[in-house]
C-alpha cells in the first residue's frame, strides 16, 4: 500500500511525529519509528486503539501483529481506555525504602481505586507497579502524565492532585 491508501484515522500530529522519526532512520528500516508513533498515539488518545495501530502498521510497512507486539511489550503503553491523568508511583528499591508504599496506600484510599484501575469519573488512572524511573535521588517519586514529581509527601501528592483538572 502506498501512503495514499492510508486509512484516514491518523491525525496530522501523529503523522508528523512518524515522519520526524522516519527521517532519522534509513529508508529501509521504517519500523524504527514504531515506538515514536505509538507514543504519539497514546499521547493523543490516552491509550492505543487497535485501528490506529493498524494504520501505523500500514504507514510503517509492518505486519499489524508486529505493532501489537511492541505495544504490549512496554508497560508504558495502555491497550485499554484509562483515566485522563496517569499516576505512576515508583515502587522499586530506592523509592520503596523512602516510603513509596505509603504514597500508594494514600492514593488508593483517596481515589477509592486499586493499582491498575481508573476512577469512575475517568479523571485518574493509577498505574500498576512502576519500576525504577531513574529518579532515585528524588525518591519517593511518581510520574504524573509526562512529568516527574519527586520527594513526595502525602501533602505534596494532595497538592498535585488538586492541580490537575
Amino acid at each position, binding site marked *: 500500500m502506498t501512503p495514499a491508501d492510508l486509512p484516514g484515522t491518523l491525525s496530522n500530529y501523529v503523522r508528523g511525529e512518524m515522519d520526524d522519526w522516519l527521517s532519522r532512520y534509513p529508508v529501509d528500516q521504517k519500523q524504527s519509528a514504531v515506538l515514536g508513533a505509538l507514543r504519539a498515539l497514546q499521547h493523543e488518545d490516552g491509550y492505543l486503539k*487497535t485501528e490506529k495501530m493498524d494504520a501505523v502498521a500500514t504507514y510503517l510497512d509492518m*505486519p*499489524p*501483529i*508486529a505493532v*501489537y*507486539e511492541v*505495544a*504490549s*511489550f512496554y*508497560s508504558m503503553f495502555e491497550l485499554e481506555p484509562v483515566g485522563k491523568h496517569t499516576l505512576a508511583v515508583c515502587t522499586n528499591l530506592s523509592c520503596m525504602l523512602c516510603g513509596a508504599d505509603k504514597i500508594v496506600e494514600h492514593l488508593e484510599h483517596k481515589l477509592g481505586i486499586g493499582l491498575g484501575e481508573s476512577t469512575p469519573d475517568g479523571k485518574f488512572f493509577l498505574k500498576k507497579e512502576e519500576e525504577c524511573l531513574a529518579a532515585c535521588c528524588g525518591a519517593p517519586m511518581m510520574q504524573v502524565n509526562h512529568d516527574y514529581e519527586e520527594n513526595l509527601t502525602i501533602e505534596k501528592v494532595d497538592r498535585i492532585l488538586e492541580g490537575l483538572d
Partner: protein
Amino acid sequence: MPEEQIQLFINDREVHASKGAMLIEVADQHDIRIPRFCYHKKLSVAANCRMCMVEVEKAPKALPACATPVAEGMRVYTHSPAALDAQKSTMEFLLINHPLDCPVCDQGGECELQDTAMGYGEDVSRYTERKRVVADKELGPLVSTDMTRCIHCTRCVRFGSEVAGIRELGATGRGEFMEIGTYVQRSLTSELSGNVIDVCPVGALNAKPSRMRARSWEMLQCAGLSPHDAMGSNIYMHVLRNTVVRVVPRENDELNETWIADRDRFSYEGLHTPDRATQPLVRTARGWESSSWQASLDVLARKIKQFSPEEVGVMAAAHSSLEEQYLLQKLFRCLGIQNIDHRVRQADFTDQEYMPLFPNLGQSIESLEHNNAVFLIGCDIRLEQPMLAHRIRKASARGCQVVALNSRDFDFLFAAQVNWNQAPQAWLQALSEIVKCIPDNELRDLPHELKEIVEQASPSMYARHIFELLSQAGTCSVFLGAMLDSHPQASALRALAAVLARHTHANFGLLPQAGNTAGAWLCGLLPHRLAGGVPNPDAGLDTTAMLAGPCKAFVLFNLEPEFDFANAPSALEAMQEADFVVVFTPYVSESMRSYADVVLPIATFAEMRGTYVNAEGRWQTADKAINPPGQARPAWRILRVLADHLGLEGFTHESSQQVLEEIKVQTGETTGFEGRLHESKMVQTQADPEGIYRVSATPMYAVDNVVRRANSLQQTPYERSPRVAMCEQLARELGVLEEDEVRIVQDGRAKVLKLELDPALPMNCVWVQKSSRQVDELGNAIAPVEIQRLDHD
C-alpha cells in the same frame, strides 16, 4: 557450492563440517542427538529455548548448539556432565508452566517436549506453586489451540514471517505474560497455515478437524501423494480403522520440503462423506436401482454400442491417476471413440497441436528458487499452486522481482511484486506492447494476425519495465496460469508469451493445474493426441465442441460438470439433454441422479495405487492407504473388466503396476522439459475490446470433487459467497452503489449478485467471485457480459 571445510570433534568423534554451520546442524548430519525446541532446520535461529546446551572446550559455560558456529579444532561434548546439567536445568524450567495433560493431548506420543522430558526431565517435580494458565485462541477452522501448553519457542511465529510470507501470529506481552496469538481475534488466512501444527513442538497448536479423534500410536502411517495441484506434494495419511484421520507432510526436499498446503492437509475430510457412491446404480423404468458390477457394466457395454463413435464424448478429470486416465482413453479408443478430453476448464483450443508434450514448469521445482525475475500471466499462483508459490517466495526473499499481468490485485505475499491490472480483453494488447520491445527482425515468425497487433502496439511504461526486467534478469521465468487457460484468446496469449520467453531466455512454464494434468497429456487423454504425444490421425472433438455439438452419449470420469467445467451451465445442459450418460465417480450427487443413466462407484486417490506426473515431469507412484467404501473399486480395475464385457483385447493387466509398465513403454518415462512451446502458427484473436468482461478464478478449495467436500476447508475465509466486484468509476458509470444488487447477463443467462467495490480492478471488467458450493450459472470464467441496474421502487 564449495564451502570451506573444517574439522572438529563432537564427543571425541572427528567430524567435518562447512565453516559457518551451526553446531546443531553438524551434529544432526552425524546423527548425534542434541535436544531442542526452538531450532528448526527450515527456520531462522531464535535460540530462545536454551534446550540445546552443549559443553564446548575452553568455553566457561555451556553454549546453545543452535546458535554456536563450528570452528576449527573445536571440541564439543553433548552428553558430558556439564552439558547434561544445563539441559536438565532448562528442561526443569520449561516444565514449570507446562500442564501435565498429556493423556488428553493430541500431541501425546509424538510430542517433542514429552520425548525430551523422558530423556532429560526428573520424575518428580520440585515446583509446587501455581502454574500459569493462558486463554486459548480462536484461529479458525483448521488449527486448534491449547495455549497453556505453549513453551514460547516462536517456531510458529517464524514460520509465518519466513515461510508463509504473512506474519499472523506473534508474541504479545512480556515475561510471564507473554502469549502467542493474533492479538485481535481472527482466523489464520495463510494457505499454508496448517504447517504451524507440525512445527509446534508441543500440543499448543493442533489440527482442529482431527482433534481428539485418535492417539498417535493407534494410527497407521501410509505414504501418499496429494493430487490437488501440480506440485505432487508428498504426504503421509494417518489411518485409523480404514479412515484417514489426518494428513501430514512427507519430507521431500526436491518438492514440498517439510511443508504442505492446507488443501493437501485437510482435503481428506472429503474422502469420508455421506454422498460417497458405494454401489453401482442403474436408471430403470422404475427409477434408480442398485445393481451389481456385472449387470451395470453389461448395461454400459450394451448401451454404448448403440451410438456411433462420433456420438460419444469422454471427459475425465486431470486429478485422476495415470493408470486410470490411460486405460480410459485406451478402452474408448478401441471402440473407435475419439472425442476424449480432460481440458474441461479451457476455453480456446486453437493451438492444441503446437502445445508441448505436456504443460510443465520449464525447469525443476527446486530451481524455481534461483529465478531473478518472474512474470506471471493470468495466474493467482498463491491460490492455484501454493507450494510452487512458496518456492518463488524463497526466490523473492533473495531479491527476485515478480510482475503479474492479471485483472485484479492478487497478493502473493512476495517481497517484491508489481501488479499490472488490465481487463482480460486488454491482455493481448498488453502482451503485444511487451513483445513490441523485441527488435523487429526477431518477430518475423509471428503468425500474421499477431504481427499486425504487435506492429500497432506502443509500449507503455509497464510493458517496457517488464521487458527490461526479463532481459536483464539472467535466470527468469514466464508462467501462464489457470486464468490464462480459461481465456478466450489463450492461444494468442500463449504464442506472444512464448516469443517473449524465447527472446529473453526465460524459462517458459505453462502451469499444469491439477495433480496429474501433465499425465493426462502424456497418456493421450486428448482428442488430438495418443499416448506419448503421438498425433492422432483421426482427431476427435475437444470439450467445448463435444458439449456444443453432436454428442448424444457421455462418459464422465471423476468430474462434476456443474463445478469442474469452464462453462458449467452448458455442460450441465448437455448432460441433461444427452440420451445416455455414464459416470465413473466417487460421489453421487443429486444433479448426477438427474442426468446420469449408470453410476459406477470408483476409488479416490487414497484408496488405490496410482501414479501422478507433476509440473516438472516427475512420475510418482503411491500405494493405497485405505480401502474404498462398499462396492467402489479402483477405476483401472473397473475399466479392465469393462473391456472384457465389450470383448476388447489387450486388457489383461492384473495389477496397476502392469498398467504403468505399459504406459512407460508408450511414453518413455519423460521427465525432461523438451516441452517448450513450439511457436504457434494458429491463434485466436477474436474479442470485443469495447464491452465489459467478467473474470473469475476457480476458488482454491473448489478445484476437485474431494476438496469441495472437505468441510473444514470450506469454513475458511477463502470460501466466499458469490458476488460481483468492480471499480468505483465503472460503478458510477453504471449508476450502481456498493452492496446494490446488479444483474449480470452473459450469453443469454442472467444472475443477480451483490456488488462490491474494488479500486484495483481496471475499467471494463468485473470480478465474479465464485463459490465452491454454488454453480456458476453464467458460463465461462472470462467472457463478455452486460451489467444491468436493478431498479427498485
